[in-house]
């Protein structure tokens, strides 16, 4: 592994100087706020912000007994699984289609990557308009099937809306990784399998898919992380967590309780819990997944 050429620095300080701007940004915008969140999750502030008292694990204990929080947890799980599964399946489907394409593959790839360049908030607004119950085109078509679409009143509709918006944005990313994965499967393996009497579909399941497993596990973790964190603006632009909390996923609840509800202690505790979930996921990825998928 390490037989690649290495650059050696004569000046001991140069690497640190070069890293400094990035480290500075990371410290100011990530590490310090995270530290603050951990700190304030153990404290209670009086309503006027004059004094804070240390309350230990009180916020966490309350959260564990708060049915609203546990509901939000469940909703987030549904949302994360749905978005991950849908965006990975469609990403894989498009990757397989493009991989089999000889001509114009590049055009398709370019087009398929565009949604990723769209900001989440724009993606949210886009689907919000497409699904708008009075002017949107999709509710119009759905009405032919006897479905009266209204994500402002129907919690299930609202959840479907954010799932579609979040998944749509993520398909491009998954597509790119799956396509790169598929194209790195040696061509002769497919030919050997073809001679071994395996048809295109069987080849996909017997050869391509197992060889894609590192990519699949990587994407799984990345997508779950994405749905936990990066989907805030999609919810914010479309449903604001409603109706009746039905789309109030964990990351949005942090914002609602802390910024709108001004319950900083509980909000901090929630964000620390979210952080822990991600740390566990990443740990799983490095510790188990990377080893298990080796062949």
């Amino acid at each position, binding site marked *: 592994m390490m037989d690649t050429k290495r650059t050696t620095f004569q000046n001991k300080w140069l690497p640190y100087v070069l890293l400094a701007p990035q480290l500075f940004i990371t410290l100011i915008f990530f590490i310090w706020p995270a530290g603050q969140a951990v700190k304030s999750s153990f404290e209670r502030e009086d309503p006027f912000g004059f004094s804070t008292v240390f309350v230990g694990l009180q916020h966490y204990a309350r959260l564990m007994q708060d049915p609203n929080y546990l509901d939000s947890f469940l909703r987030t799980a549904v949302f994360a699984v749905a978005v991950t599964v849908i965006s990975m399946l469609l990403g894989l489907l498009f990757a397989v289609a493009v991989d089999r394409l000889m001509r114009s593959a590049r055009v398709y790839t370019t087009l398929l990557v565009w949604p990723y360049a769209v900001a989440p908030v724009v993606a949210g607004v886009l689907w919000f308009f497409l699904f708008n119950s009075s002017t949107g085109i999709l509710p119009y078509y759905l009405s032919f099937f006897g479905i009266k679409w209204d994500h402002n009143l129907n919690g299930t509709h609202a959840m479907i809306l954010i799932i579609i918006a979040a998944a749509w944005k993520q398909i491009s990313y998954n597509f790119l990784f799956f396509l790169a994965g598929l194209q790195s499967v040696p061509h002769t393996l497919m030919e050997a*399998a073809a001679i071994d009497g395996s048809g295109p579909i069987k080849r996909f399941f017997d050869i391509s898919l197992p060889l894609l497993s590192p990519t699949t596990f990587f994407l799984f973790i990345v997508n779950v992380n994405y749905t936990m964190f990066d989907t805030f603006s999609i919810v914010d632009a479309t449903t604001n967590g409603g109706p009746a909390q039905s789309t109030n996923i964990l990351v949005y609840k942090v914002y609602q309780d802390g910024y709108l509800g001004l319950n900083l202690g509980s909000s901090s505790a929630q964000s620390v819990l979210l952080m822990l979930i991600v740390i566990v996921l990443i740990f799983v990825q490095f510790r188990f997944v990377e080893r298990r998928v080796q062949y």
Partner: protein
Amino acid sequence: MASIDIESVGKVYTGNVRAVTDINLAIKDGEFIVLVGPSGCGKSTLLRMLAGLETISEGAVKIGARVVNQVEPADRDIAMVFQNYALYPHMTVRQNLEYGLKNRKTPKAEIDARVAEAARMLEITQYLDRKPRALSGGQRQRVAMGRAIVRKPSVFLFDEPLSNLDAKLRVSMRGEIKRLQRRLGTTSIYVTHDQLEAMTLADRLVVLNGGKIEQVGSPLEVYHTPASTFVASFIGSPAMNLVKAECQGDKLVIGPAMISLNGYAPTSGAVTVGMRAEDLRVVTGDKGMPFAVEYVEELGSQRLVHGVVGDQSLTIALSGETEIPANMRIDIDPAKLHFFAQADGKRISAADRSGAAADAPSPAPVA
């Protein structure tokens, strides 16, 4: 087992790239055919058309009595061994061997028996539960062979299967492939760019150049009567010496030198003359041709002496102990000369005295 008939087969890739032109070849049941030629001459393309991995642009391929142009690779009753082995990396050796049989719904007991037999034959029984990455190059090569053998196909196709092995292993695997093929009697087509591999393996050699067949024949036929200067320089090591010369009656003029043909002159005028390094010998007195030695390669059993006659390079192979005299002269038995037309490089045989050289204007000999 099956015979193979290749009839006027050609291949044009997309973008009008022509790789193979008008190949005609009848392969007998059980024969070991080697396709040999320099890189890019279309060997793999031809083999892949037989395998069904490339469409056949022109002509027809018959395996047994059946035209297979439109038949899927899986249904052609062939097995192929690839240069990079193409073992399924996520399957154990056993699973690799079983895969083709399982796909064909072979009964479990039959699969086990065949895998066990192939593993024993190739001495890979102790590796059956390993993944390919835990095997050496030679062991992977055996597994790739095993995967072909267990299927009991009518035809084996090999695409440079030994190119990724080191020289020593290549020699031993070469022998093993030959032995296996003899034992199984399966019709085999083997692609290589290595003329030595080709010579040692083939029942019949097919020498390809620029997508066309240059010569078909047994290794010794091809070696002793190369059909063209291309074959002459490609088959045999060191390569056959090819020099420009002129037939003047019963004399052959090579630059400043002249040797007697003793009635072996097949033509007259300018020709290309081929001389095997081992057919040239050192002579004393003022017979033969003056040979200016440039350098000597010691191979132990042989010494290869490189030098010039006039301004044309020649190599002669001498036995290890032969002295190299100061003013060396070399000669050759005229029966061992090969004559080729200068225009197209084709062989001029004694029976074919209307050779192309006759109509070429003869340059004055530099006497």
